[in-house]
């Protein structure tokens, strides 16, 4: 009897199978290697992989359906606060994750539909501005809904949030497995990795389905897509709502992993960062998006460890703090990629042709 994974591997061309096995091994070994540098590195790894998840969620909206969502992080916030409120001492609720996560996803999805339904029948740019506004509104509410009834605890945020727990198995504490101590962040790494694999599969399968074809058709010629009977508004709404749900799930995991949420974590710049990941990597191309997410997620660390000492060496003081440099780099990345490499760093072969063609073709 062959295991299905083994069966799948054996059917692949030899070098692909080799890549899959080594890639898998590296991914599995990564948190242990990072641990050598300290717990902080494992946390950075966790965040990076969470961003991969987020970026792949946004990829459905931006990459597949071609809709510009500038408030993606608002859905992430909805998911995070759902978790925070339903599993923390704040309300004294401690619901299990398999209850909260779907609620968070559904709530995010609901917000997505409420925003998308009026906007998606219009030209695409309206969606951009509406989502942009929504991102700010959510933050205003999170900041202010602490009085007269304290719902969100305002700018202080919510603390002591429950971790992901499976019965007695908590993802936040240390566990002894085979004589090796697995730390909390390491366990979250594997949880997030599993989720990422899942979202990669979902992305891939959607892209190569009736739904994915309809999205591509809409992206290329909306009028022709309507003429062959595609309900373009519903299909766009579907993509938008799906993206929102993934944002909601990611937010829930984020809240559980950090144990703390506050409105500050959900600012516009986070939305821009996830968008930059999708754009930089290559809209619609799954490996490209993953690359973009990893690159931009580790960028702040690279800046902190690279640019600060460099500035000190060169000018004797820190002229530009790494935080603003990071934002500047996001902005520049968006502008430069759109100008010189609209297909992204690692585009899909078709998308590359499309964007290059768009340059010559359209008036």
């Amino acid at each position: 009897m062959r295991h299905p994974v083994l069966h799948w591997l054996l059917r692949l061309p030899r070098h692909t199978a080799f890549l899959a096995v080594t890639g898998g091994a590296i991914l599995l070994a990564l948190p242990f290697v990072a641990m050598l540098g300290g717990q902080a590195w494992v946390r950075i790894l966790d965040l990076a992989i969470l961003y991969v998840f987020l970026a792949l969620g946004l990829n459905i909206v931006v990459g597949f359906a071609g809709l510009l969502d500038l408030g993606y992080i608002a859905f992430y916030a909805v998911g995070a606060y759902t978790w925070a409120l339903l599993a923390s001492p704040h309300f004294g609720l401690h619901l299990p994750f398999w209850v909260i996560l779907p609620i968070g996803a559904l709530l995010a999805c609901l917000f997505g539909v409420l925003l998308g339904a009026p906007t998606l029948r219009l030209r695409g740019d309206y969606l951009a501005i509406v989502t942009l506004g929504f991102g700010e509104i959510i933050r205003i509410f999170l900041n202010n809904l602490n009085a007269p009834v304290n719902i969100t605890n305002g700018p202080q945020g919510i603390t002591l949030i429950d971790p992901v727990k499976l019965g007695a198995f908590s993802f936040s504490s240390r566990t002894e497995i085979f004589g090796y101590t697995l730390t909390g962040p390491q366990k979250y790494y594997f949880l997030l990795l599993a989720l990422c694999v899942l979202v990669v599969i979902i992305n891939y399968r959607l892209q190569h389905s009736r739904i994915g074809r309809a999205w591509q058709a809409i992206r290329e010629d909306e009028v022709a897509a309507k003429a062959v009977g595609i309900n373009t508004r519903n299909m766009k709404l579907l993509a938008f709502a799906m993206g929102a749900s993934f944002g909601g799930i990611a937010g829930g995991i984020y809240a559980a992993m950090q144990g703390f949420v506050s409105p500050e974590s959900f600012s516009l710049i986070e939305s821009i960062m996830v968008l930059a990941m999708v754009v930089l990597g290559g809209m619609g191309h799954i490996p490209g998006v993953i690359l973009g997410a990893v690159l931009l997620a580790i960028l702040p660390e690279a800046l902190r460890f690279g640019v600060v000492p460099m500035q000190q060496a060169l000018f004797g003081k820190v002229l530009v703090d790494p935080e603003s440099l990071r934002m500047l780099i996001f902005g520049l990345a968006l502008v430069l990629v759109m100008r010189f490499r609209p297909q992204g760093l690692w585009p899909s072969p078709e998308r590359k042709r499309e964007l290059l063609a768009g340059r010559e073709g359209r008036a």
Partner: protein
Amino acid sequence: METFLQQLINGIVQGSMYALVALGYTMVYGIMGLINFAHGEVVMIGTMVAITVLGLLAALGVPMGLAAVLALLAAMLACMGLGWSLERIAYRPLRNAPRLTPLITAIGMSIILQNLAMMIWSRNYLSFPPIIEKVSYEVAGAHFSNVQVLIVVLAALSMAGLLLLIYRTRLGMAMRATSQNLPVARLMGVNVNRVIAAAFIIGSAMGALAGFMVGAYYEIAHYQMGFMLGLKAFTAAVLGGIGNLGGAMLGGLLLGIIEALGAGYIGDLTGGFLGSHYQDIFAFVVLIGVLMFRPSGLFGEKTGERA
């Protein structure tokens, strides 16, 4: 009733500033179908330049009145240059690209400008020096100041000037033609590049004026102030019917009034549940409402649903 009148006055003042900024969005959108997300940042930079110039001139002992005029001119020149460069460097190379491309670029430019401004003018709140001696008047229990009157009058004058430019000059005619139909305008010999550049430059000049007013009115400035201001001004443009100059002006006024009245009464309306710090959500509610029920705006033609 006092609240009503007071908030109405505040709304009109705020609304005239929205209207000035909204003009920049609506002109660019009308001509090339682009939401110039960076416009709010252009306005912010106008405020910042004005603050810097005012500070310099004050240090040189230039009298305040002259300094204010020079600072306004400097802010306008700086913004016109910025608007022109934005178009030239960032948007023009993308003119034939797929729709998403210039939008993403605009977002990128907005982020870049914000952070450059932060590096230049710091991440702190800056105070805008008082330009004229503030005098308050009272009518029927509502207060208003000479600064407010000046803002409304100046805004009205400059908008009248803009309308004259658009409806009485050759450039204005070319702009209107281009916004009707760009390819045809080009065929008829309109220099489309020049028209688009003009839209950016004029819009930025209006934006600089608005930025100056916002600074003078609130006496404070911050590198992130352009974001919300831009979002609201865009809402005003959509409310009035995007692409429609008169619509942007009325939309701005209306939005200012809605917001002021909303902030004045939100506590009563929600039984004290929501307070005036929710003021910012009104613009958003208006935006969603307009898009849902009348996407072409209050004064626009029915063109919003082009695929």
